[in-house]
């Protein structure tokens, strides 16, 4: 019989490795999906995934059941996403302008990802338009991008996103609005 989360958590807190793995496997598809939507690059998504669950692993002994485990986990995940972007930016520091505006540069080598589409099912998307959408997404601020992908790709309600990001729903609405407006501006040529 399947144990519920709190039983698994308690076991994992006592150091039970298998219980921790079981717990991870309950949620990790969503986390990976969230990461993939956010960074679009499979290798980056794997990095995010590992970082999220490493932090969960480290923090779990202090988890006190004050919130739902899933809420707590997704908070960590959103945090990791937002800081991951910062790390990337440091790397690409020299080419900030290109990163956002130039035709040929993309911090996640999206063109590679899309080109490899034929050999994997990593992407259901293809074509020019998908590239442009990704580029427009990459040009958003981390918060805007996260809200946008969580809402439009992952289907979370704004209320839940606010909870994950630990901010007011109004703030999330603002992020979403600005994100969509900026996407629209960038994609004007693509759909008009």
């Amino acid at each position, binding site marked *: 019989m399947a144990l519920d989360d709190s039983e698994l958590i308690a076991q994992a807190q*006592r*150091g*039970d*490795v*298998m219980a*921790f*793995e079981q717990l*991870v*496997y309950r949620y*990790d*598809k969503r986390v*990976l*999906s969230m*990461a*993939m*939507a956010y960074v*679009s690059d*499979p290798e980056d*998504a*794997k990095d995010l*995934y*590992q970082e999220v*669950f*490493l932090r969960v*692993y*480290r923090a779990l*002994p202090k988890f006190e059941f004050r919130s739902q485990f899933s809420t707590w986990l997704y908070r960590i995940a959103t945090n990791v996403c937002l800081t991951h972007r910062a790390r990337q930016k440091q790397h690409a520091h020299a080419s900030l302008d290109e990163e956002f505006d130039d035709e040929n540069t993309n911090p996640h080598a999206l063109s590679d*990802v899309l080109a490899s589409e034929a050999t*994997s*099912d*990593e*992407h*259901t*998307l*293809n*074509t020019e*338009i*998908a590239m*442009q*959408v*990704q580029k427009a997404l990459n040009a958003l601020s981390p918060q805007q991008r996260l809200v946008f992908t969580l*809402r*439009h*790709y992952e289907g979370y*309600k*704004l209320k839940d996103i606010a909870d994950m990001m630990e901010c007011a729903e109004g703030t999330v*609405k603002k992020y*979403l*609005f600005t994100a*969509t407006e900026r*996407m*629209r501006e960038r*994609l004007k040529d*693509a*759909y*008009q």
Partner: protein
Amino acid sequence: MNHQRIREWLHLSLSDELSDQERHLVEDHLTRCERCRLELEQLKQLYGTLEGAGRPVPSEQLLWEARQGLRAVLRMERSRHSLWERVTRTISAWAGSLVSSRFPGYAVAAAGLALFAVGLYAGSRGVVPAVFRPQMAVQTVSDEGSDPLAAGDVEITNVQFLDADAKDGQIEFIFEAIRPVHIKGDINDPRIQKVLTYAIINEQNPGVRLRAVNAIKSSPPQSSDSEIKAALITALKTDDNPGVRNDAFAALQKYPFDEDIKNAFLYVLTHDTNAALRITAINVLQTVTGTQRRADQDIVNVLKSRVESDENTYIRTRARAVLEEIKQQ
């Protein structure tokens, strides 16, 4: 009602995030405002474009790789951070219990943490060196006969002072006492099983994981112990070493074929990057479906997907053949 506010609400209405009252206001405004109707049309186009572009979706393969990577990361994490946190959590339980006779004038809190080096004698496989960190094995010196400092071969490491200024004549510290432990017993001994389970999941060294799996393979436990079985399934699905996965597969074949094992084998057939393992999986499933007549829809579905998409020609052919056999039953 200003247009800016309405524009924001138009976005929200397309995301299905408006309250009933807000939606009424928007609809009402739209009947009267040409500009906002146009705006809504444009937004719908934008959303259509976004939808048409699709989205990056992680493949099952990526999930598999991510899990393998995570396992390696956690293994490293465990070996690095061994026991400090567990010690501090339990230390208050017995602070001061140690030995004023041994260290007169001081109350010493010592965490004798059992970090057992285990010599495993399983079957005739010889010694398997392993490190065993039992889950709650904080030993207190006051435990009868289990003073970790009493044994001659204790190695004290990682001494950390909790209170070293000694103004009040009290010194408090914790340390890890590492002591080699030999356990000898057969596979049905719960202690042996515990160590094996631990080694399969946590041991850094793939050679040790391999020997632990092998020990089970050569003499599987009589009662089908679910913890060892679960450890084998985890190893089969996620160990980064194909040799370990291969032996985990062989060990699992000694268990009665049930849903868990079926799913694990199907997982291998679907996801394992190693073609030899996928072939083994097909062979085993063929035996099971042939002699035991246990073909079910899950098996059929996976075989079909292999026929269609396995990159390996031989596997595609074999999968088709097994499907044929099943049909003729």
